């Protein structure tokens, strides 16, 4: 083994340690957690998971989260597609300013928007629905999707468009039959990022929901407060939130590096 491969290995061990500790806790009983310090669960139990999968108060949280994440991803990417095409192919009045204005929304701290969003979505009657959270998350996901897609689209030579027109394609037929499949990887990466930032965000998701649409991440705070300090349950709920992310990463693993560079390497 080469000496330099030691660096990534050590780094990955460092990354996996907290995850291991979380999993370890999730398989322990409350007694074992509080009474002894053990490196692996001696008293292996699935009780914590059983509670989550049988109590609708818990598992609905996952479904709520997945629901607004899905709405957000579809919405963000579908409106970002034509916009990114316009930015990558045409010059128009105010294009550069518009692009920067979109990016400023990616820079807006969620804390600034928490209270006004609460009032806005209460006023339009969407409070405590997945739509409120999905729409609120488009604030930072649309700019990001436009940025990524624009990067990927700029890598496609303009001759592709021109050849299609010469061959008699109408614009929309060209766009959906030829262009979209060409940048499929970019669309995948954009979806990945929308999924990622909507899935991990909590401040807005928590502010915009109360009962019906509460995300799983917000439910976790209740283990610490109302029902004593159930670390095992908290750990189990946390462990389950790792799964969607891991699944999504697996699908985009070949494009992930390029995607993180926003398609412009």
């Amino acid at each position, binding site marked *: 083994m080469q000496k330099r491969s030691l660096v990534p290995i050590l780094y990955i061990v460092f990354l996996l340690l907290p995850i291991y500790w979380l999993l370890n806790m999730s398989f322990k009983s409350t007694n074992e957690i509080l009474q002894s310090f053990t490196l692996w669960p001696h008293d292996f139990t699935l009780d914590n998971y059983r509670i989550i999968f049988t109590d609708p108060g818990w598992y609905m949280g996952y479904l709520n989260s997945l629901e607004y994440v899905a709405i957000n991803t579809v919405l963000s990417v579908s409106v970002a597609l034509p916009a990114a095409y316009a930015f990558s192919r045409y010059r128009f009045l105010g294009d550069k300013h518009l692009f920067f204005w979109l990016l400023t929304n990616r820079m807006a701290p969620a*804390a600034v928007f928490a209270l006004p969003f609460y009032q806005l979505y209460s006023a339009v009657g969407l409070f405590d629905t997945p739509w409120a959270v999905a729409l609120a998350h488009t604030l930072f996901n649309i700019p990001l999707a436009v940025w990524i897609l624009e990067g990927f689209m700029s890598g496609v030579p303009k001759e592709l468009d021109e050849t299609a027109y010469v061959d008699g394609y109408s614009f929309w037929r060209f766009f959906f039959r030829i262009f979209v499949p060409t940048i499929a990887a970019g669309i995948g990466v954009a979806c990945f990022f929308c999924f990622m930032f909507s899935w991990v965000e909590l401040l807005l998701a928590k502010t915009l929901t109360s009962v019906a649409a509460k995300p799983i991440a917000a439910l976790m705070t209740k283990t610490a407060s109302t029902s004593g300090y159930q670390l095992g349950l908290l750990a189990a709920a946390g462990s389950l939130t790792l799964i969607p992310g891991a699944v999504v990463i697996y699908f985009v693993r070949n494009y992930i590096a390029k995607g993180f560079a926003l398609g412009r390497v």
Partner: protein
Amino acid sequence: MRKTVNQKAWFFVLPVVLLVAFNAVIPLMTVVNYSVQETFGDNVFFWAGLRWFEDVVTSERFHDALIRQCIFTALVLIIEIPLGLVIALAMPRKGPWVSVCLVLMALPLLIPWNVVGAMWNILALPDIGLLGRSINALGIEFNYTREPIAAWFTIILMDVWHWTSLVVLLCYAGLVSIPDAYYQAAKVDGARPWAVFRYIQLPKLRHVLTIAILLRFMDSFMIYTEVVVLTGGGPGNATTFLSIDLVKTALGQFDLGPAAAMSLIYFLIILLFSWLFYTLAMRNEAR
């Protein structure tokens, strides 16, 4: 790429503009509205002029939070950017291990932020957490709920754990895009590894590094959830960063005027720095 001038392109951008305007302009106007008014409840408002802005700019609480925020962001950038670069340089470029490395490294990025906080909470507990217990076993007093230094150490370590992968992935994407011919030319010239890094890799990475610094700056400046879950801004106010302070003022005390004024100042600071980085990045791209 040469672009055609076409004003009809506005129709393509329109859905995005409408959605983002709904989400950004209306709330921002609400904030501006609050920032210049005084209220005693019941939706009765009085004109307050720039009083709240003066209050915030001169308040010690805001200064302290701002200073803490700047120190935190500076530390995060100083640690994560070089570390990410070193790891990316050491990663394999070909073979089956590439995918494994990438998937494992991206994992922390997809964990909900409060779960990250909870995870580190469990890891750093002085009696039953692996990290807390190990440090205490070394004979160093470690309790992040009581000592500011321990709290800062845990938070910085957590952020390094959470976000260094972003820098690694960006740098890695930049590195694999360098054509082999560059390295062969360097070999023919007998360049040492340092020279290869300094004159081939670093210039090629300039662009991705700008993106990495930009993203890490913005996100670390807005950090909220992880820290709230881990320390709640404590012990005392030792880890109360700008977002935490803002949420305490706005949603905790319902001091709408000062909170709104603070929001605008906060947003403007981020905007100013990001604009500087952005113009630099775009200038690089134009070259």
